[in-house]
Every structure is written in C-alpha cells, then in structure tokens.
C-alpha cells in the first residue's frame, strides 16, 4: 500500500495528485509566501494545501463510491443544469474571451516520486527505500533524477538502522524525521536511549517515561518499562539514569549532559509558575 498508515489527527491522504499541477501549485504558493510582507519564510502551508487537495480528490472518489454502493440516486449537476430553460444573461455585455490553453507539459516521472514523498511527509511519515523498491519501477533512475533536480532539493534522506528514509524538508522537520526514523527502526531500547540523550543535550531536559507513551511514539507503559529494564543491563547505555521528581513522576536522563542534581532540579515542578 503506497500511502501507508493514517495517523489519528493528521490529514488523510488517499491518492497522488497530478504531479505537474501539484508542483506548480507548490511553486506558486512558495512565490506567494515570498511576497508576504516581512516574511522571509518558505510557506509550509503550500505543501499542506497541496496535500489537502490531493486528499480531497481522493475523498471525493471514495465518497462517490460510497454513494453508489448505497444505491442512492443523485441528480448530476450538469444534467440538472441542461434541463433548465435558457435565460439571457443581462449582465453579459462583454463576451468572454476564450481562455488561452497552455500547452500540456509532460511532467518528469521523478516529480511524481518527489510529490509522493512530500505528501507522506505532510502526513508525518518518512518514506523508506525498501518500500519504494517494492512499489516503483526504475527507482534508481528516478532517484538520480530527483537528486539532480533543483525543484526537488527539499527531498532529504536519513539513514536508519535497517533502511534509508526520504522526507521533504518543506513539510517535515529534520528532528521529526529523526524521531520517525527511530520509530521505523522499531528498536525501543535504542530509540529511548537516543531520545533521552538528545533531549538532555538539546533542551536540556530529562525525559519523562510517559514521553514515549504519547504521540508519535505511542508505546505502552509495559513496553517502556521493559525497554528501560533491558537498557540497564547494557553497557552502552550506562549513562542513562532514572530520577523521580517532586510529583512522583519518573524521568530518564543522560549523565553525558546532565548532572544528577541538576537533572532532578529541572524536573521538579515548581508551584505557581503556571
């Protein structure tokens, strides 16, 4: 299944939009974003909007299928309009000029691949090379073309333990890609250790046990406890330590980056600081 899981709370993706129009929309929105006053930023909304439109396109097909399956009769709008008597348009004093048709451009095939990765990124999913190999013919050529294409420079990679993952920096942050790759690696002990170290170094902060029970990790309390028990037996994780704060909440931290005393202090909840 090309589009994988759907996460609760994320926009759903049911089909790939036409790659040419999607990319043109992305670029148009990007230009609009650049024209925004004082805004030096790439407008992430453009990619989300493209994903939304793709989603809507897919949803409408599903919706029509559901309607047909239910056996409900629905009058086609054009049929309905065709049955209506002609009425003179009083306001049509200037005949509309026929729209100039742009010549159809054949989109390069690697754009479709890039758009697929973008849409998955917008849906909070990195895209594994193994998955692509199983779904896409001529993948190596497409990946080469994508890497050489300036319009695809938002497509980045991150190496996981078992696979190489692609994501779009236009819709997914590097740190989130790191998290999702760790999730895809499906090695809870390693993931917990890496995130505990990352949080201790970056914020700095100790990591509550419940951190891994919440989205996007969604691991059970038992799984987290089991992983922590295993971690304690492994030499490479001896910098990971446990503390309990003043509200009996349990945390993990890395002694590479935090002293036990400071880790406890910044994990304690101070009253009246809400």
């Amino acid at each position, binding site marked *: 299944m090309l589009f994988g899981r759907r996460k609760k709370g994320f926009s759903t993706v049911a089909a790939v939009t036409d790659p040419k129009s999607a990319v043109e929309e992305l670029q148009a929105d990007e230009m609009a974003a650049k024209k925004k006053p*004082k805004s030096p930023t790439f407008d992430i909304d453009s990619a989300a909007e493209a994903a939304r439109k793709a989603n809507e396109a897919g949803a409408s097909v599903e919706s029509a299928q559901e309607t047909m399956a239910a056996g409900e009769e629905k009058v086609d709008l054009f049929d309905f309009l065709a049955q209506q008597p002609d009425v003179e348009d009083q306001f049509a004093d200037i005949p509309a000029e026929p729209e100039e048709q742009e010549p159809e451009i054949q989109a390069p095939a690697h754009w479709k691949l890039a758009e697929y990765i973008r849409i998955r990124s917008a849906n909070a999913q990195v895209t594994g090379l193994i998955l692509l190999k199983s779904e896409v013919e001529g993948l190596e050529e497409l990946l080469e073309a994508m890497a050489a294409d300036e319009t695809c420079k938002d497509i980045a990679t991150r190496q996981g333990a078992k696979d190489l993952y692609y994501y779009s920096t236009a819709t997914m942050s590097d*740190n989130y890609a790191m998290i999702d790759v760790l999730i895809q690696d499906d090695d809870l002990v390693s993931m917990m250790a890496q995130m505990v170290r990352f949080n201790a170094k*970056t914020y700095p902060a*100790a990591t*509550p046990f419940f951190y891994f029970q919440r*989205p996007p990790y969604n691991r059970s309390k038992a799984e987290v406890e089991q992983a922590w028990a295993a971690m304690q037996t492994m030499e490479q994780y001896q910098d990971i330590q446990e503390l309990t704060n003043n509200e009996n909440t349990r945390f993990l931290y890395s002694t590479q980056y935090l002293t036990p005393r400071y880790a406890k202090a910044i994990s304690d909840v101070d009253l009246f600081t809400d």
Partner: protein
Amino acid sequence: MAETFGWAGKLLRVDLSTGSITTEDSAKYQEYIGGMGMAYRIMYDEAPMDLDPYDEKALVIFGVGPLTGSGVPCSGRMNITFRSTWSKGHSIVDAHMGGHIGPQLKYAGYDGIVVTGISAKPVYLKIEDDKVSLEDASAVWGKGTFESNAWLIEQTGREFEAASIGPAGENLMDYSTLNTSFGNAGGAGVGAALGNKKLKGIVIRGTGTVKVADPKKVLELSSYMMGNLIGGNNNHNVPALPQSWAEFSAVSGKNRWSGAPGRVWGHTPDGEEIDAGEQPYNDINKIAYRCLKGVFDFGEVASNYIIKSGGCQSCPIRCYTQYEIDPLAEYDLPIHNSNTCMPVLYGNYAYPGVELKDFKYEGDAKMVINLAWSHAVDDMGLWDNYGNINRDLKWFLSLPREEAVGYIGEEEYDSLPWDWMHDGDPRWEVEIIRRLAMGEGKLSVIAKGTLAMMEAFGLPKEWLDRADGTNSNLMYCGFPNHHGPAEAWQTGMLYNMFYNRDCMIHEIVCETGSGAPYEVTKKVMEDFFGEGCYDKSKAYTPINENKVKLAIYCAADKNFHDSSTLCNWMWPMTQSPSKERDYHGDLDLQADFMTAVTGKTYTQDDLQEFGKKILHMLRVMTAISFKLNCDSANLRTEHDAITGWVFDKEPDFKPFEEGTTKLDREDMKKAMDMMYTELGWDVETGIPTAETLKAYGLEDMAKDLADRGII
C-alpha cells in the same frame, strides 16, 4: 470632537450619587495611550491618594485603549483602575479582564467610564451607544454573578455584554471580582470597589465601529502576525508534543501549545470527538486548535470533559476551555465551566492531606475539584489574589484543631462540614467559598486579604518569610509572586516590585515556559535585549546591566499593553515558531499596529517611553499612599523589601549554584541600586527624582512630592 482613529473619542462619566451621566472629549488623554495610562492621569488629577478608597469621591475607571475593537489580534481587553483596600499602602491598583465587553464599550463610542459617587440603591449601568442609564438592580443584589448576568441580559437583550459583581463584592470582601459568565474576570478587589458604590453590574451594546487610519495595513500586519509570529497561548513557540513540521517540542509534554494529534475535544454536543491534530505554524486556519488549555491544566484526562475552546474577542488563541463536568451533578452543583489560569488550578488546596478520589475517569479528581472551585469563586465574585487565598486557606486548614480554634473559635471551627473535606466532596470547597464571600465567621478574614488575616490572627511579619510551600509573597505588601525569580531570576524579582498587586507581567515566562531549547531562546532574547540577559533554568548568574534593563522593559511593555489595551499573555511577539526566522519574533509589531490604527507614528522606543512614564506615575502615587498610610515614603524599605524565603529556601543549595532559583541578598541589593539608577529614581528611597519626573512631563507630580516632603 475632532475625528480620531483608534480612540473612540469620548469618555463617559457616571456619578452614582447624583445620577448624572455626561460625556467629555477624551483627546487630552491620548498622550497616556488609554486604559491604564489614561486612568492614572485621571486618578491623580481627580481622586488623590488622600481620599479613603471607599470615599464617595473615590473613582473606579474603566479604560479601553485604541487597539481594542480595531481588529488587532489579541486585543479584547479592558483595564479597571481604582484604589486597593487590601495591599499595603492602599494605593492605586488595576484589574484587567478579557472577553467581549471591552470591545463593546469601544463600539458604543467610549474610551472609558469614570465612575464616582455612591448610589442610594443597587443599580446597574446600561450603555447602548449614546443611550446610557442607571437602572434598578435590587432584584439581583445578593445573587451570584451567573444569575445576575443572565438577569441583566434578560432585562436588556442578547446583543448586550454583561458583567457583574457577586456577593463578595457586595459584602466588601477585598478579594473580589467583576465577572462575565464566560470566566472573564477583573480582580484586585474591583468587586468591593463597585459594591461600595452599589453598582452591581454593567451591560453594554455598541453598534458603532472603531475607525482605523490604515485598514489595509492592519490587515497586512495581521496576516504577517498570523502566518509568521503567533504561537500558542503565552505565545509559546513550540508544540507540547512532537509535530512533523516542528523541530522542537516541550519534552515535558506540557506547555500552552497543547493541541496535538490524539488530543481532543471529547465532550462535544453531538458526541463526535474533534481532534486538535497538527497545527503547522503558518497554517492560519488551525491556530485555534493550538491552545488546548484544559489539557495543559489537567493532562489528557481533561479531553473527556472538553466541549470546546472559547476565548476573547479578536483572539485566535482560545485559552478559555469550556467544560461539562457531569460528575458535579451528583452533588447538585453546576456542571458547566469556562475559565483559564488561576481559578482552575488550586481548588484542591482546600483539601490538605486528603487523597482525592477520582470521579468518573482515572486521574480526574483534581480537575473536577478545581473546576467546582472555579465555578463557585466566579459565582460569588471572589478573587484569589494569584493563589494567596488558596495558600492561606491551605495553611489554616492544615493546622491542628487546637491551634485553629485559637484563631476562629470552637463553635465556628466545628460548624465547618469537615466530613465533606475528608471525603473529597466538592460541596466542601463551595461551602468554604460561600462563607468567605458572605463574610461569614472569623475564617472569612482570609478573603479580606493576607495582611488583614495576619493582623486578625496576630501573625508576625516573619510569617511571610517562611518557605513551607504555602507562602509565595515576595514582599511584605500582601500580594504574591507572579512569574518572578522562579522563572526570571533577578529580573523577575525586580519587576514584581513596581505594582500594588501581583505584577501580571508575562514577558519572560512566555519564553521560559515555551519548551524550546534554552540556546534557541537565549539567542532570541540576547539578540533583542543584550548579552547575559537570559539565564538558564535554575542556573542563575549574578546581576548585570542587561537583566536590569530587561526588568524595566517588561514593566514598561506591560503598562503599554494595559493602556492600549492588548493581552499581555500574548504580546509582545518576542518569539516565533518559524525556524526560518530562527525563532525570532518582531518586537516592533505592536508599534506598527499603533501607527496603522491611530494614524500617528509610533516606534517601539516610543511605547517604552509611554510605559516608563506610567511607571513613574505609579511610583509617585504609591509613594504618596505610603507616606499617608504607612508613615514612610521610603519605598525601598517599605514597599520593595524582599521576604526571607526568597534567599533562604532550599538550604542545600547556594545562590547561583546549578539547581536552584534562590537569590542572593547582596546581589539583589546591587540589582535594586542598578534598577533605581537606570529609572532615575533615588537609590535610597526608590522614588523618582524631580529631574526624572520633569523629563517625562510630570512637573506637577514632582511639585506634589516636594510639597509633601517626599523628595
């Protein structure tokens, strides 16, 4: 009246003694911006500190600034200025409230209401554009605010916005509020100030508009703010849980950008859960899902009770979570609730030593108890003084019986329904609140203020020095810490010293509480405010010039917000959620909005000067009050003296050691010296010098202080 932009142009004056209602041109107060600044000038000119706060001539001044009602985001605020009856010195003080009533006042055509006099009978003030009248409110005198507001709307119409005082205000309980029915409340004792005047409530309907000088610019700035700068509540700039577009999130899972995939409005009328989902920072259509305040306050269990997120006029950050707490029906208590911040946080303090039992869902005990508290205090119009009422109550309720009866007597002590407390029954807190609001029994002195309670119970000044978790008073003035040293090192201690109530300054906690990495936020702050201004959490450094300047900046900025009138939880736009902006906000935006709305040119430096001018005015009136009521105008020793626990808590730590927020005495003396010097205040007394006041055009105040022998 000349055409004016931003400002409505008129001031409403109401004399409750005579029934006189007049208007005047408000243009002369534009140099004080409006709201707080305007009210301070009026208060000084017309109701000097020599008056008793309950004197017939005492004023209550409602002020709404030029930005409210103009379309500027996060501007649905109103400032109310009056005299404190409960904090040391009985000086000038402000209440602040959000909702929709402030903008309605602007739409009705007024920048403020100056209320004087005392009515012979309970009345309410009805404002419908230029039709203004005082109406009989005898029918709801003695009633709670919810019933009163409903009655006011029945009398006037659904298009009106209503706010009323409760029994606490009527009974002149100093901890009292003015409330809407949606949790918007002005505190600081405004309920008693209005209750003394027999003014039960206000209803306003405005059908006009606020004229804006450059509406296209306002729209352009608003779009820029929505797409690039605004974060969650308190402008927290990273989400509480990881979101795919965001590099960072709050590791604790707790900040005020609480909306996240899987977190829901779970108690919607149609039973369909609404998932907050992801909210990419520049997806302006999802901003309102960011602040799932109930989850911030109570954790994931809150979702079971959340109907939706509500909030103030012109604000996309919906920080008033609306709940249906159906377990309370079992106790014949109201089940609907809408509130934010303090009223919902510490109701459980009324149950010291009791392990509260869950009501319906695992982990909902504290939430249900706290929301029962929230509804009851709002109904009674009882103010919490930023948790002092909860802390003082907890202290008392924790006392052994033999000690407690020494304060309130055996008969009253035994009349309390203690079984309800031990059972974790929400009716316990409701009964306590009722007694406090009605002034019933000796225990109710808690609602007269911490200082009044200490006097009644014979507690020494040192009672405020203790570090036992039920004391948050930074000074000896009767009001507590508000985002002070625990979040903002010496800077927070300094800015807590300026006011006659808790300071209500959020300029720093918006950053320290955001959940972003320290180094990211430090860069933002140092780029704006200079090297060394921003300490790491619980790893403080000695005072320096930039920390002092930051403290003054915070107070001046807050003063501008309460004058213009903007929400200080959201403004200024210091941070941004945008990685492309390196998470830097735009401090100039509020000045740009002032220019676009009023047609006058403002810079951020101008706004700082306005804010400092208000600070000097506040200090002058505080000095006069202390001279009159405390027999000393040395504010450094009488007003700004710091309580012992600030320096003596956490005995295992030394100041500036990693792991503590305790301050150092000598360092703070130096900090105060530096701050007074920076402000142009006398270092020995902490009072503005004549030269400083003259530099800000306050010659009359300089002369007044000299005539009184204060400078």
